[in-house]
């Protein structure tokens, strides 16, 4: 995962967390741990699609906050 993708992903996750009312400190912790876990699983893969990345991130986020994972996974299929 390149720096630009990671940065934009982090920004989006922070927006979702704030929208859900998750305190900033907790959100920061969830996002850091999630991205670290995702980067670790991506080391084994040479190619990954955007959908795969989304599923990986949502799977990791689910461990910390189900609503956060749900909104991240589904927000672009609401309309």
């Amino acid at each position: 995962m390149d720096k630009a993708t990671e940065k934009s992903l982090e920004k989006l996750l922070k927006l979702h967390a704030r929208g859900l009312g998750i305190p900033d400190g907790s959100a920061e912790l969830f996002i850091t741990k999630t991205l670290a876990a995702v980067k670790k699983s991506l080391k084994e893969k040479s190619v990954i699609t955007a959908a795969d990345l989304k599923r990986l991130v949502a799977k990791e986020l689910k461990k910390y906050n189900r609503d956060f994972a749900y909104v991240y996974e589904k927000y672009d299929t609401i309309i």
Partner: protein
Amino acid sequence: MTTIIPVIILILSMLIFLFLQILPGTFAIFYHFALAKFSRKKSDDLSLSFILGTEIFMATIWLLVYSIVYAIFTGGNFNNPSFSFFLLGGITFALAIVSATCYFRRGKTTATFLPRRIVNGIIARIIAIKTQKDAIILGFFTGVFELIFTLPIIVAANIILQNTGAIPRALVIIIAIICTIIPLFIIRWFFRHDYNLADIERLRIKLKPHYRIILCLTFFALTLALINLGIISHG
């Protein structure tokens, strides 16, 4: 023209405005991102601006269609509305089938028929919103995406109102606008009472089959009423 069938058509039309889902979906995401970027009070104000934009769009469309229908029917070239009713009946029948099959996409989502590129554009627009003017414009243009479903209804209603003096036009327009914005106020109520986007979306997914059935049956009933009215006008 008897007044009962036109009134039934108008009531069915209002039901359709209540159950269409593009505006409520857009509004839910809008409120979610507004809460992410701004304070509760500002998010609330922006949500009211969005609703205002929707109201302006509906009023504009109704007045535009009224002008066109008035010009056609009082121009002297087209006095018999029966053909229009048969045509609109055909269109609403097609919409009944479309709403049952492709209004919502498959799966556990409330994603609609809109292409993903347009949806991503709307979401990018929502994330970039800063002022009330942006919110009004977004509310206004979101109504455009449902025109394929709402325009035939608005045309039918205006033709009926043109040919039936008994029903006050302004009242019908006001009720139509209210029916369009009721789902938005319901979603706003949920957000103001500490529900979040996840809760609202889970509820919408639960209600999705019901929306589908209601839309399909309402369009179907509208078809029958319009064809009936066409036959009566022709006779």
